[in-house]
C-alpha cells in the first residue's frame, strides 16, 4: 500500500489527473500513445509472438527465399528466406532498445550539467559547459553522427556511442535555459536564504519546473534517435547484418527493388510508424505543459 | 449607434465563456459617451463586435448592432471595410501591441491613408502619402514627424506610440471614435497630455466618441453620458453628473464608495465577492450573488436596462423596474 500512497502523492503534486484529462482530449495524442504502447508491447513480446523468432538472428531458410507476402509469411521473405514480419518486429525491439540506451546515457548527465551551469550562471562553470555544448550544437546532427561513426568500426554498439556522444549537449542547453531563468525566482532565493544545500535546491526546486520541456524533448527525441540510428545503419555505419535493424533491412532490401519490394518496404513503413507515433505523443505532452504555462 | 441585446461568447479549452449577456447601448451623433467597468467585464468585446474584429474563437449568440442605419453584424465584408475607412475608428489600449513591430511607422500609416478610400490607389504616390502622413502626425503634436515615420515602433516611447495610433485613426475624417482605455498603459505624466490631445481633436473635428476607462476621474471630466458595465451587461447609464451624485444600481454605489477620498473619510469595505465565472454564470442578474438587496426575482430573471425617471437615467435592476 505504501507504493500506492506514493503514487497518489506524486500524482497530486504534478497534477497528473488534470494533465491526463487534457491529454485525452486530443485524438492525435491518443493515437500516438496507442501506437507507442503497441510498439513497446511488440518489442517486449517479440520472441513470443513472432512466428519465426530464430530468423531474426542467424537462421536462414534458403529454400523459401523471395516469397511475396502470404498467410504463411505475413510480410514475405527476404533474400535469405527469413520472415520479414518477424524481423520487422524484432526491429522494433532493437530500435526501442537503442533509443532507450542512448537516452539513458545522455539525459541524466546532460540535465545535471545544465542545472549546474544554469544555477552558477555567469561563472566559469557556466562558460565552460555552455561553450562546449555550443560547439556540438553548431554542427548539423547527422553530419556529426556520421563523422563520429565513420571513424569507428561499424557496429550497433558504436553507432549508439556515436549518437550518445553528440546528443547530450541538447539536454544541457535545454536545462540551462530553464534553470538560468528560474534561478533568480523568489522561491529559489528563499531556499538559499534558508541555508538550503545548493544541490538540493537544484533538484528539488528548479528541476521539477523544467520537467515539462524535458519530458517533451525526451519523447520527441526517441523518434529522432531512431531516425538517426536507422540512417546510420542504412548507410552501413551502424548495425551490421544479420542484426534485424530496420535501417539495415531497408538498405539490404533496396537492391531488390522494385521486384521484391516487400523486403524494403515493410521495415520502411515500420520506421515511419514508430517515428510518427513518438512525434504525436511528444506533441501531446508538449501541449499539456504549454497549457500550464499560459 | 444602437446595440440591442447582444450576446457574445468565446470558445476556449475550459469551456464556453459567455461574456456578453444582452448588452444594450445607444449613442447619438456628436454625443460623448463613456463606459466604466472592471477588467474583464466585456467593454472591449462589445467594441470589437461593433468593428467586426472579434477573436477567431468568438461566437455571436444573438442581438444586433446598428450604426448609421447599417446592421453591423450582418453586412458584407466590402461594406464593413467602407465603414471602417470612412466612418468608424478605434484606438487600442496598448499602443505597443497595436503597431506591427516589423514595419516602419510610415509604412503602416501610409497604407492606412492609402486605403482610406479618399483617393484612387493609383493616384496615391509615395510622395503624396508621405505628405499626408506628416500632416497627420503634426495634428497629434508629434515633434520631428519625418523621423517618426522612418522609425520602428519599438524605437518610440509609449506616449509617442499612442499618438501615432491616434494619428492613424484620425488621419482621415471619421464620424465615431472608439477609445479603449487609451491612457491606461502610459505613464501618469503622459496620460494627461494624451487625454487632452484627444479631447481637443474630438471637439475640433466634431466627432462622436465612446471612451472606455476604469478611471472614474477621467470619465467624469471628459464625457456627457456614462454607462456602467458589469459582467457582460450595461447595468446603469445616465448623464455624467447625475451618475456620480446619485448612483442607483447597488454595484455603481459600491464602486463609487470604493474610491478613496481626499477628505479622509476612511476606506470602504469594497464590494464582497468576485466577478462571476463566465463558463457558469449565475442565472438572472449576474450581480445577485454579491448584492445586499438581492431578491428572489434577481436570481431568476435578468433585469433590462430601462429608464427610471424622466431625465434619461437608466438602470438594470429589479429594485427600480417594478414588475
Amino acid at each position: 500500500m505504501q507504493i500506492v500512497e506514493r503514487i497518489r502523492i506524486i500524482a497530486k503534486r504534478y497534477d497528473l489527473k488534470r494533465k491526463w484529462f487534457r491529454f485525452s482530449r486530443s485524438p492525435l495524442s491518443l493515437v500516438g500513445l496507442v501506437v507507442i504502447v503497441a510498439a513497446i508491447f511488440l518489442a517486449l513480446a517479440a520472441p513470443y509472438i513472432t512466428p519465426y523468432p530464430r530468423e531474426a538472428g542467424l537462421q536462414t531458410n534458403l529454400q523459401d527465399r523471395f516469397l511475396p507476402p502470404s498467410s504463411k509469411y505475413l510480410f514475405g521473405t527476404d533474400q535469405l528466406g527469413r520472415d520479414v514480419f518477424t524481423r520487422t518486429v524484432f526491429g522494433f525491439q532493437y530500435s526501442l532498445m537503442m533509443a532507450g540506451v542512448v537516452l539513458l546515457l545522455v539525459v541524466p548527465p546532460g540535465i545535471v550539467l545544465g542545472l549546474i551551469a544554469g544555477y552558477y550562471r555567469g561563472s566559469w562553470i557556466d562558460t565552460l559547459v555552455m561553450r562546449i555544448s555550443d560547439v556540438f550544437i553548431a554542427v548539423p546532427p547527422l553530419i556529426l553522427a556520421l563523422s563520429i561513426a565513420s571513424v569507428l568500426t561499424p557496429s550497433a554498439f558504436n553507432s549508439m556511442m556515436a549518437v550518445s556522444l553528440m546528443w547530450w549537449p541538447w539536454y544541457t542547453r535545454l536545462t540551462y535555459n530553464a534553470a538560468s531563468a528560474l534561478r533568480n525566482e523568489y522561491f529559489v532565493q528563499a531556499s538559499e536564504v534558508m541555508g538550503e544545500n545548493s544541490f538540493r535546491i537544484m533538484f528539488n526546486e528548479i528541476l521539477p519546473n523544467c520537467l515539462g520541456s524535458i519530458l517533451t524533448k525526451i519523447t520527441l527525441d526517441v523518434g529522432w534517435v531512431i531516425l538517426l540510428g536507422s540512417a546510420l545503419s542504412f548507410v552501413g555505419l551502424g548495425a551490421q547484418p544479420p542484426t534485424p535493424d530496420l535501417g539495415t533491412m531497408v538498405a539490404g532490401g533496396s537492391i531488390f527493388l522494385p521486384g521484391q519490394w516487400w523486403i524494403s518496404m515493410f521495415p520502411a513503413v515500420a520506421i515511419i510508424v514508430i517515428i510518427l507515433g513518438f512525434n504525436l505523443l511528444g506533441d501531446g505532452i508538449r501541449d499539456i505543459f504549454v497549457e500550464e504555462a499560459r | 449607434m444602437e446595440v440591442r441585446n447582444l450576446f457574445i461568447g468565446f470558445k476556449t479549452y475550459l469551456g464556453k465563456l459567455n461574456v456578453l449577456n444582452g448588452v444594450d447601448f445607444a449613442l447619438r451623433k456628436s454625443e460623448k459617451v463613456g463606459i466604466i467597468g472592471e477588467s474583464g467585464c466585456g467593454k472591449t468585446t462589445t467594441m470589437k463586435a461593433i468593428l467586426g474584429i472579434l477573436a477567431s474563437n468568438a461566437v455571436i449568440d444573438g442581438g444586433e448592432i446598428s450604426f448609421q442605419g447599417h446592421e453591423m453584424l450582418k453586412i458584407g465584408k466590402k461594406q464593413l471595410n467602407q465603414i471602417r475607412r470612412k466612418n468608424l475608428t478605434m484606438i487600442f489600449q496598448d499602443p505597443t501591441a497595436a503597431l506591427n513591430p516589423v514595419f516602419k511607422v510610415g509604412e503602416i500609416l501610409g497604407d492606412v491613408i492609402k486605403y482610406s478610400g479618399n483617393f484612387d490607389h493609383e493616384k496615391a504616390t509615395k510622395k503624396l502619402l508621405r505628405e499626408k502622413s506628416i500632416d497627420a502626425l503634426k495634428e497629434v503634436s508629434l515633434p520631428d514627424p519625418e523621423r517618426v515615420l522612418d522609425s520602428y515602433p519599438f524605437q518610440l516611447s509609449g506616449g509617442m506610440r499612442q499618438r501615432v495610433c491616434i494619428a492613424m485613426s484620425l488621419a482621415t475624417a471619421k464620424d465615431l471614435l472608439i477609445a479603449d482605455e487609451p491612457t491606461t498603459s502610459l505613464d501618469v505624466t503622459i496620460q494627461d497630455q494624451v487625454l487632452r490631445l484627444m479631447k481637443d481633436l474630438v471637439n475640433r473635428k466634431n466627432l462622436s466618441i465612446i471612451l472606455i476607462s476604469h478611471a472614474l476621474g477621467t470619465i467624469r471630466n471628459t464625457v456627457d453620458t456614462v454607462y456602467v458595465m458589469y459582467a457582460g451587461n450595461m447595468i446603469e447609464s445616465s448623464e455624467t453628473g447625475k451618475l456620480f451624485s446619485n448612483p442607483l444600481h447597488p454595484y455603481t454605489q459600491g464602486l463609487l464608495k470604493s474610491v478613496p477620498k481626499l477628505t479622509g473619510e476612511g476606506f470602504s469595505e469594497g464590494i464582497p465577492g468576485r466577478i462571476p465565472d463566465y463558463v457558469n454564470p449565475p442565472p438572472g442578474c449576474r450581480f445577485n450573488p454579491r448584492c445586499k438587496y438581492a431578491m428572489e426575482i434577481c436570481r431568476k430573471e435578468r433585469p433590462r436596462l430601462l429608464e427610471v425617471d424622466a431625465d434619461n437615467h437608466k438602470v438594470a435592476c429589479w429594485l427600480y423596474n417594478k414588475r
Partner: protein
Amino acid sequence: MRLSTFILRRTGLIVFSLVGLSILVFVLARVLPGDPARAAAGNNAPQWAVDQLRRQLGLDKPLYTQYFVWLDNVLHGDLGYSLTTKRDITADVIQYLPASLELIVLAAMFQIAGSFILGIIAGRYSYKAPDNLVRVVSYIGISIPAFVLAIILQLVFSWYFKLFPTTGELSAGIAGPPAITGSVTVDSLIAGKFDVLANALWHMVLPALALCMGAMCQDARIIRSGMVENKDKDYISMAKSQGLPDRTVTLKYLLKPSLIPAVTVMGLDIAALMANAFLVEQVFNWPGFANLGLTFMLNKDLNGIVALVLIIGIMYAVANIVVDVIVAYLDPRIRLMERGQ
C-alpha cells in the same frame, strides 16, 4: 550589438566548432584501436607495404604534427590524397561537389516554395478543411526519414508510375554539356542546350523532393502556427479596423512577422539538406559529393573523411551567414538591438 558583430560572432562559433570537429575526427581515427594504414592497405598486404604506406601517409609522426601538416596543406588548397579514389581529394571535390550543390539548391527552392504555400494556406484557413489536410500531411512528412522517402518515391513514381527516371543525372544516350562548372544544369544552360537542361532537371525532381520534404513540412508548420498565433494579435485587429483590404492584411502584415521563426530555422534546414544528401544520393545513384563521402567513410579513408567534414563545415558556415542576414532584414529588432529594448 551591431549586425556585423553579431554575424561575426556566429560565424566564429561555427568555424570554431568545425575546427573542433576536424580535430575530434582526426584524433579519434588515429587513437582508436585499428591501424588505419592496415585498413587502407587491406588485410592481405605484406607488412612492409603497410609500413611504407604508414610512412607515406605520415601516420608515424606525432599527432599534433600530423594535424598541423594537414592544416597547412589545406590552407594551400591541398586536401590530401584519397586512398579510395587514388587521387587528390581536391580533384574529387571539384568533380563531385557541383552535382550535390545543384541538387541542394533545387531542394532549397522546393522547400521554400512548398513551405510558404502550405503554411499560408493552413494559416489563412486555420481549423478548417485545408488547414487540417496540411497539418496531417506535414505531420507525416516530418516523420519520414529522407532515405525512406527516397526509396518510396523511387518505388512509386519511378518504378510503378514511370513518371520520373530512376537513377543518374541524365538519361542514357543524352550527351552531357561541355563541363565548365561541373554542374550539369548550369553547364547546359551556358551551352544553350535546353533539352539537356530539361532532362537533367527531370532527373533531379525526385531526389530533390526527398531531400527537402522533412524540412518543408517542418517550416510549413512553423509558418502556420505563426500565422494562427499572430492572427488575433492587436496589430492585426488594428489593421483590420482601419479597413485595410484582406489581402494586404494577410500577405503583408500577417505574413512578415510569422515568417521570422521559420527563417530562423532555415540555417538548420540547410544543414538538414546537406545531411540528407548522404542518404539520398546513394538511392538515386547521384554522382555527388555525399555519395563519394559515404565511400570514404566505409573505406576508412581518413583524409577523405576529414576533408569531407571540412567542406561541409564551410558550406554550413556560409549558409548560416546568409540566413542571419535575411533574418536581420526581416526583424528590425534584431538588427537594431539597443540596450534595454
